[in-house]
């Protein structure tokens, strides 16, 4: 195992770089950041459409979210592989295909998080803002979204972890990310599949577990800060004596 690690770890972490294309864990992280970063504004847009007062926006966005949630990621990857070049009329790299797929997939899931975030805010927030004379758009932008997004921070980190795991699908269309690199190392060695794939799982575990712990820490902090803002209400709710 040690021998495999010393010779092949670089190709699992950064691929052939600097003598060839960047790959491995580095590419996995780049894909995840790109995918989630681009999905973020799209997800907010979708969420706003889903709670919009107009059926013209609400119905199509709801259909999009349900379709994306009901179809496996692999199928979406194949669809983008086939449709994106057809639609824009030129060849597209596997990397771009994967980023496009991840953005669509994550935007659908993110929109559900944003929607839940907005809907979990007390109704009084909207009512107060509207009675102060703010428009619907202004209420959303200055009152609801800032609070919802702040409360969503832990979910966003969990979503980043999901995205990292989803980039492994790049294996299917030969994007040189971590799982594909492990497949290549395995083909080169031929006789050590257990060690190679155990190493692969371990790398994913270290990265994703660290991020998950981070999400828990942020979650705790936000809960505590929220509790600090309204100490009277909170202490009443959690008082074990009153609860019996």
């Amino acid at each position, binding site marked *: 195992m040690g021998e495999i690690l010393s010779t092949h770890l670089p190709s699992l972490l950064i691929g052939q770089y600097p003598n060839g294309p960047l790959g491995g864990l580095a590419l996995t992280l780049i894909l995840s950041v790109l995918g989630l970063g681009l999905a973020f504004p799209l997800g907010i847009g979708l969420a706003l459409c889903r709670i919009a007062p107009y059926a013209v926006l609400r119905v199509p966005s709801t259909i999009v979210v*349900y*379709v994306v*949630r*009901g*179809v*496996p*990621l*692999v*199928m979406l990857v*194949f*669809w983008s592989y*086939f449709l994106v070049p*057809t639609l824009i009329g030129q060849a597209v790299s596997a990397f771009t295909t994967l980023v496009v797929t991840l953005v669509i997939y994550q935007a659908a899931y993110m929109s559900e998080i944003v929607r839940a975030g907005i809907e979990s805010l007390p109704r009084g927030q909207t009512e107060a803002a509207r009675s102060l004379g703010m428009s619907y758009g202004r209420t959303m932008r200055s009152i609801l979204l800032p609070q919802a997004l702040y409360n969503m921070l832990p979910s966003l980190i969990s979503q980043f*972890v999901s995205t*990292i*795991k*989803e980039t*492994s*699908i790049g*294996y*299917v269309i030969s994007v040189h990310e971590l*799982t594909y690199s*492990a*497949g290549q190392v*395995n083909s080169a060695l031929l006789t050590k*599949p*257990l*060690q*190679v*794939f*155990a190493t*692969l*799982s371990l790398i*994913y*575990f270290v*990265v*994703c*577990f660290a991020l*998950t712990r981070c999400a828990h820490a942020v979650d705790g902090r936000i809960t505590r800060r929220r509790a600090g803002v309204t100490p009277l209400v909170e202490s009443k709710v959690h008082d074990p004596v009153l609860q019996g």
Partner: protein
Amino acid sequence: MAINLNFGSLLAAPHLEHLVAALKYTAALTAASWLLAVVLGVVLATLRVTGSRSLDRGVAAWVAYQQSVPMLAHLFLWYFGISTLLPAAAQSWVNANNGELIFASIAIGLCMSAYFCEDVRSGLRAIPHGQQEAARSLGLSFVKSMRYVILPQAIRASMPPFINHTVILFKNTSLAMALGAAEMTYVVREIENQTFRTFEAYTLATVFYLAVSLGLMGVGVLVTRRLQIPAR
């Protein structure tokens, strides 16, 4: 771009047979891994509340590991890696008896067991501690109190995420294509390679997955409503 759709040729021999076989394969893979995941998930969640600290930590570590590693990596580790640990006779038996299906079911089932475990656990947390105390003071053993008092309530409480994860499990069976398992996604890819009817082939698969996913969500709503304890 001239659009000339032809679903008929895909829904006739020889492709129809392959699609039907793929349907059965996906159904078998979903059923086997779901059963493994649910049973193990409930057992693991129960282990976490026995009060033993080492059991609790062990299960927590298992859940963290299964949830932090992508499904594809689990599939590769089981199919290419752990399979080599089996004795030679067992290996050849597995290879002769649809090893892709067996290892894919194990990998998907074990991974999803972590999610089901968390669902049941969150359901258990919703049950007041007095329930357990009352059951024990009535003379029920720990296992019996779990079986007759706590779990039936906890599972009701955890139905919505439970259904959500069942849909995710079903969608994840498509990843077994990477092992060469002849489930729906794999077969549709094969048909597409032979006929070049990409749009039609992908549409068939997409409609299939969408119909089953939405169907499962619908059944979930019905079951949740059916199981609900009527308010008094």
